[in-house]
């Protein structure tokens, strides 16, 4: 189980301190797919980065199976079984898809067939990509799929995906849904996805609507959508009468 206890994260801008997340308490249970949604700037990506250790909380603790991992580095958390898929995939001049996949698999001599298996999962014809450099010669969608493949190949206990649908074309979207469906069927560890897509929300065991300190949990997609619509309408009405 992954637990966030009283997590706060604040930043300084224009000499003013601002909370991105305040006193957040969350529990992620084993074998569940959790989708996190919320408005832009609500702290979704920050929450994922806190779990991975990319940013450190101002206060609070992060526990993985009751072990405090708050002060562990990124790579220590990775080796404890947390995998992370970035919203914006990172480019590397000179590093090939094969090399990055080998690193992700933790084996320098990983079999080509194993690498191909993961690339095929994200809908890439491995033969065409394995020797290509992870640079600007690849499209945004291709980079995104390779990013997801590296995360899947970690075979991690906790899989984190930050907007996996971003940059994926409509034709490949069903493929992406299949990946999460498989993760759900296999019931492998915890899957945390930041997404705004209804189809992805539909797969979730739990949906978290986040807005700074305010966290609301929903178990059914319709409920969260109803809630969002209601909140939106209320805001509109407030705007009219002001």
């Amino acid at each position, binding site marked *: 189980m992954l637990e966030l206890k009283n997590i706060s994260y604040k930043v300084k801008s224009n000499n003013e301190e601002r909370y991105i997340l305040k006193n957040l308490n969350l529990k992620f249970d084993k074998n569940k797919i959790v989708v996190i949604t919320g408005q832009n700037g609500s702290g979704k990506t920050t929450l994922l980065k806190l779990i*991975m250790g*990319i940013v450190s909380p101002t206060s609070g603790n992060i526990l993985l199976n009751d072990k405090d991992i708050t002060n562990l580095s*990124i*790579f220590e958390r990775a080796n404890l079984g947390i*995998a992370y898929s*970035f919203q914006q995939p990172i480019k*590397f*001049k*000179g590093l090939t898809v094969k090399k990055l996949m080998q*690193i992700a698999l933790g084996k320098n001599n990983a079999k080509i067939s194993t690498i191909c298996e993961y690339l095929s999962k994200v809908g890439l014809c491995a033969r065409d990509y394995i020797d290509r450099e992870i640079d600007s010669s690849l499209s945004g969608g291709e980079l995104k799929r390779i990013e997801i493949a590296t995360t899947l190949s970690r075979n991690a206990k906790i899989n984190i995906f930050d907007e996996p649908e971003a940059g994926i074309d409509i034709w490949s979207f069903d493929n992406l849904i299949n990946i999460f469906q498989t993760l759900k069927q296999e019931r492998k560890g915890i899957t945390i996805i930041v997404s705004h897509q209804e189809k992805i929300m539909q797969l979730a065991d739990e949906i978290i609507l986040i807005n700074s300190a305010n966290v609301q949990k929903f178990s059914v997609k319709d409920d969260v959508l109803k809630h969002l619509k209601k909140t939106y309408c209320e805001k509109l009405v407030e705007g009219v009468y002001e």
Partner: protein
Amino acid sequence: MNKNIKTSTKDVEKNIKKSNKILNENKKNDTILFDGLRGKLLEEISSLHAIPQTPISIRENGSSKIYNSNEEIRIVSKKDKNGLDIFIAPNTKNKSVHLPVIITQSNIHDIVYNDFYIAENCDILIVAGCGIHTNIGESSHNGVHNFFIGQNSKVKYIEKHLGLGKEKSKKVLNPTTNVEIKSNSLLEMETVQLGGVSFSKRITNVKIGENSKFIVKEKILTTNNQKAVSCFDIDCEGCNSKTEIVSRSVAKNNSYQEFNSNVKGKNVCFGRVECDGIVMDNAKICSTPKIDVEDARAELSHEAQIGKIANEQLTKLQTLGLNLEEAENLIISGFLC
């Protein structure tokens, strides 16, 4: 001031005398074994573990030995100066020739002039390069390579440079490459400096003929107080001539690198210069990619990107289980791969 000049001239004379003495001694020895230091240097610069079946000239501490010269690839020693003439006969295809140079002694100052005459309809691989190992004093190698590439030929030229031994000793490598490419031909050049070289100045001058192409990939690593300078002077003379210069450099510690390119478009031509550098610690890289359009139909472009390793790259690799040092090393080795 004058006193200093006198001392310096004396030093040079002394160095040359010393060097000539060692060169003459080396000429007496007649065997080449790929053992010890020699084996290591030869493996690093030419990936060879023994004398290959193909033509090869190995120059060690100023003395050359030629093996397997044949009718297709003829290697002949120059009579008027140090160096070789390499004649590649017409229609020689899928063949290779190796010309490694190694220096394993101190105070060797070697200058070599190699001329490559590549006839028409050839497809060959030329592997050159130099490795120096010294622990004291200074050793240097100046290799001047002239290429005359005939019509419809395809040449791949790889040169690797490496310095080994104690850092306080000076290892100097100055390769000069002059090329004339006739029509419908291609020269693909890969020039790599793997580290350990105290000072290097690479000069590459190329004239490209009609429908011909020159591609160069340069990869340089400098550390400590090393200095590396590269100068490319490329003339796109022929109609539809093309060139592509890709330079990737990593400068660590207090080292300094300088990249200069001047691509001249004198006809309907296409040229692209891409210069990427990673700077670490207190190192410096100065890049000056110049393009000179002398014909309105020329399409020339350049881009240069120099800076430290991007934090996002380090973060990504750490999420894959590498520590910071491993991540840095992987980025650098990939970048220079």
